[in-house]
């Protein structure tokens, strides 16, 4: 059995991811849950873990390359499968001359058809680059660098005359390999369909680059749809693999602009690593990072679409402060409970009573979430991320504390995984550590509300008719008025206040 490893969706908004570093290499044994690669998403750098045991057979996406979510980035194989590969090629050779069932894989999914087109395209680009008549093999050279090459038969070193033979054998091999490792094979068959044309056009002397181009553009109908001739030529000259580029033209066609944008992104990425502090120079213009783009897009969308209203309340934190101190003094929990943890717990309790605050406006309906997953806005370099504590309704205060600390440490050091950054149903933005008096936050769509937490301050308060020094904190909730009315927002906030002012309740 071989398993494809695909680019995981590591956040709600993630569309593509970039491989920063492979932590495992072809030939390495991989265990379920073991980190195999570092991935840059629109939100953060994350570690990707293996879902299965096996041998990392092939890396399809190299470091520094981006692919869409769901794209195959590597292949994992069991040792048994590894042994069988050698046979499959030879048994395929035995079936030489069988009709080429190109459709066998086409029937698969449109996705794979697209893959075929893409990979055939690569083969073309490569052949022009190589400027020698080794059409089928070139893709392999690029795809599997020698050092990554597993011990298996490949068309890599085939001479030109071998290519035609190969092209006859592969269709058989493809039928044979009708398992989930077949993603690799369609590419080969797409290359074959190209091969005869190229052979006919090629004969003895090498073609000049321009001539080759003319031949290639007429290879197959799928190719033409995927990228414009101009984009293809620009990518070729820049040495970019077109499959790395996301097309924004009709039907996802790659245009020159996509190539340009891709190049700019690449440049920026390199540049960003060089300059450390991200404060803009006066008079300078800064291109948005992926994270900033996401923030810009989502926050603008929120303010555009969600009718916000705000409710603010002052909480007397005297009891909460005592509560925190007594937990510290008694060391009743292993964890250091912070104000942040206390506020998350209080909020979770309030949310379980005011379910509309834990909801989302969808297609003229209100969806109440089954779980309470609280996102915490955490500042990082040039932006913020919102790690999520899932199922807060089932977690005790120390459990929440543990989850929060784990996430915050990941935010500082990288290494988010799984659903760490997705699935929030409510968000808390805490600027208490920055000493702010009061602020309001922007709702993170599609959530219904966000709680803004300000600093705990020494303030004059009236207690038993006396003005004394008390500890207070401002809470402001921003609500989506399509879901929540003022009364609900106010009651919810009062509920949070009640729990904070009576913190024994937080020990449930």
């Amino acid at each position, binding site marked *: 059995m071989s398993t494809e490893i695909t680019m995981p969706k590591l956040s709600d908004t993630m569309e593509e991811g970039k491989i920063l570093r492979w932590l495992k290499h072809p030939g390495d044994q991989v265990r379920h849950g073991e980190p195999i690669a570092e991935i840059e998403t629109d939100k953060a750098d994350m570690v990707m873990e293996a879902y299965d045991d096996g041998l990392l057979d092939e890396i399809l996406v190299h470091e520094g390359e981006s692919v869409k979510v769901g794209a195959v980035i590597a292949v994992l194989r069991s040792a048994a499968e590894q042994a069988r590969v050698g046979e499959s090629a030879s048994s395929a050779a035995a079936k030489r001359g069988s009709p080429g069932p190109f459709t066998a894989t086409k029937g698969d999914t449109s996705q794979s058809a697209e893959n075929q087109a893409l990979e055939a395209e690569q083969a073309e680009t490569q052949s022009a680059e190589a400027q020698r008549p080794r059409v089928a093999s070139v893709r392999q050279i690029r795809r599997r660098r020698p050092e990554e090459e597993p011990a298996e038969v490949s068309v890599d070193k085939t001479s030109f005359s071998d290519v035609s033979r190969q092209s006859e054998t592969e269709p058989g091999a493809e039928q044979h390999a009708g398992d989930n490792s077949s993603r690799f094979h369609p590419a080969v068959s797409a290359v074959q369909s190209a091969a005869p044309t190229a052979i006919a056009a090629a004969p003895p002397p090498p073609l000049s680059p*321009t001539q080759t181009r*003319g031949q290639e553009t007429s290879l197959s109908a799928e190719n033409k749809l995927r990228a*414009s*001739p101009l984009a293809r030529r620009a990518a070729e000259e820049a040495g970019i693999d077109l499959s790395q580029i996301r097309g924004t033209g009709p039907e996802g066609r790659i245009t020159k602009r996509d190539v340009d944008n891709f190049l700019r992104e690449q440049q920026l990425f390199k540049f960003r690593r060089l300059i450390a502090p991200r404060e803009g120079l006066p008079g300078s213009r800064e291109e948005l990072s992926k994270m900033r783009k996401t923030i810009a897009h989502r926050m603008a969308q929120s303010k555009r679409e969600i009718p916000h209203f705000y409710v603010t309340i002052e909480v007397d934190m005297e009891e909460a402060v005592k509560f925190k101190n007594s937990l510290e003094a008694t060391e009743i929990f292993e964890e250091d409970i912070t104000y942040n943890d206390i506020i998350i717990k209080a909020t979770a309790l309030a949310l379980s009573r005011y379910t509309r605050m834990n909801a989302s406006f969808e297609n003229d309906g209100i969806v109440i979430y089954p779980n309470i997953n609280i996102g915490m806005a955490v500042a990082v370099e040039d932006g913020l991320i919102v790690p999520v504590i899932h199922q807060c309704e089932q977690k005790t205060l120390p459990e929440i504390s543990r989850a929060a600390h784990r996430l915050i440490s990941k935010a500082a050091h990288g290494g988010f995984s799984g659903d760490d950054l997705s699935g929030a149903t409510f968000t808390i933005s805490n600027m208490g550590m920055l000493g702010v008096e009061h602020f309001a936050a922007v709702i993170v769509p599609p959530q219904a509300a966000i709680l803004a937490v300000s600093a705990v301050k020494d303030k004059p308060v009236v207690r038993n008719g006396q003005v004394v020094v008390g500890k207070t904190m401002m809470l402001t909730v921003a609500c989506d008025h399509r879901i929540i009315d003022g009364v609900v927002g106010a009651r919810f906030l009062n509920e949070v206040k009640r729990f904070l002012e009576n913190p024994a309740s937080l020990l449930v």
Partner: protein
Amino acid sequence: MAASRYDLVVIGSGPGGYVAAIRASQLKMRVAVVERDLPGGVCLNWGCIPSKALLNSAETMELIRGAAREHGIQTDEIRFDFKRVIARSRAAADKLSKGVRFLLRKNKVDYIEAQGSLLGPHTVALTPVAGKSPPPAEALEAERILIAAGSAERLLPGMTIGDNLMTSKEALLNDRLPGSIVIIGAGAIGAEFGYFYQAFGSKVTIVELEKQMLPGMDAEIAEELRKEFVKKGVTVLLGHSYQSAKRKGSGWSVGLNANGSETTVDADAVLVAVGRSPVTHELGLDKLGIELERGGFIKTDESFRTSCPSVYAIGDVVRPPLLAHKASAEGVAAVEIMAGIRQPGFDLLSIPACIYCEPEVASVGLSEAEAKRRGLDVKVGRIPFRANGKAVAVNQTEGFVKIVATRQYGEVVGCQIIGHHATDLISEVVLGKTLETTTAELGRSVHPHPTLSEAIMEAALAADGEAINF
């Protein structure tokens, strides 16, 4: 009707407005179009369509006149009824205008005869127009408003229309052929009417302020057109500025200035063809503080949104080029952006421009000079029609094709054509540009033989130094 709210109200039913309205209706919007004149706007009633009917008459006239010389087909003395020529043009306009009315009805777009103006961000006031049926309400409520009010003929200071001093609109209705005419302006309209009147035997003088005909067009193309006009007997005065138009007998004496020296040209009639201006007055723009740009165009963003977020604008009121097909394309784009099925932005460099005199002129994208001005390193492929088999066979060998492509990738950034059927030929290059074609694909696409279109293929090859037949 008054109480219900439209998703979109379009002001103007020209090629921008009516096309946008139909597209909006296709996208399930409830749409109304407000028009103060006739369905189809200037294009159908006072521009493209009736003028093409006149030019077709002119071409027929030239064909018959050349029949003996070229084909040995003898004709008796040629006589014509100029009133019929004009009437035929009006009939064509009328037919298409009715067609627009029909299309709007078929697409369930409410057509309202009134002067539309902005009353609020979501309100269009309807002012009755004399001679039209009264509007169904005083105002329409709309989620969004699209201004597609178009443009009007421009006059020079001190000019008043009348007594055979005409703009194109009066010329289209004028059924008495002037013996002589001075045309001020050698742009598309000036060239087309110049050709038309010349074909019917008027003595034509075209006056142009710039140093070339068709200002803005590739200079080589413009010079070729000037030579062809001069060959036909048209007097072309370049670098002449208009000073005055004085009545002289039953005609006019037009004062001109060239480099400080004054001259006058006398003629029975004067046609002013110095361009068009956006129609922005009477729209109530100032009520909503909608900003204008240089030249009086309405300022819009990439989504065709004006400075009032619920009000959009497209076509001639927005920016040059003032072309019907540009307005239509913008109308469709604006509506699709509103519907969220299209990204903001619009590529003006893929808008073709056509002039329908003979020889025809057509262009898309950048000229060689403009490309260089923008710092592009370009190569140019140029093929004359005399090297084209079909052109020789049908004896239409004047003119040439120029293709401008970047040296780096061979990206086709522009094409200019002067010659027979140039306006039909350009579409291939427009498609090519839209698909980001390079000279390699244009040159390697097999073109049928013998056709004029082979000149495009050869010009693409010529850009790469690989032309076969030249």
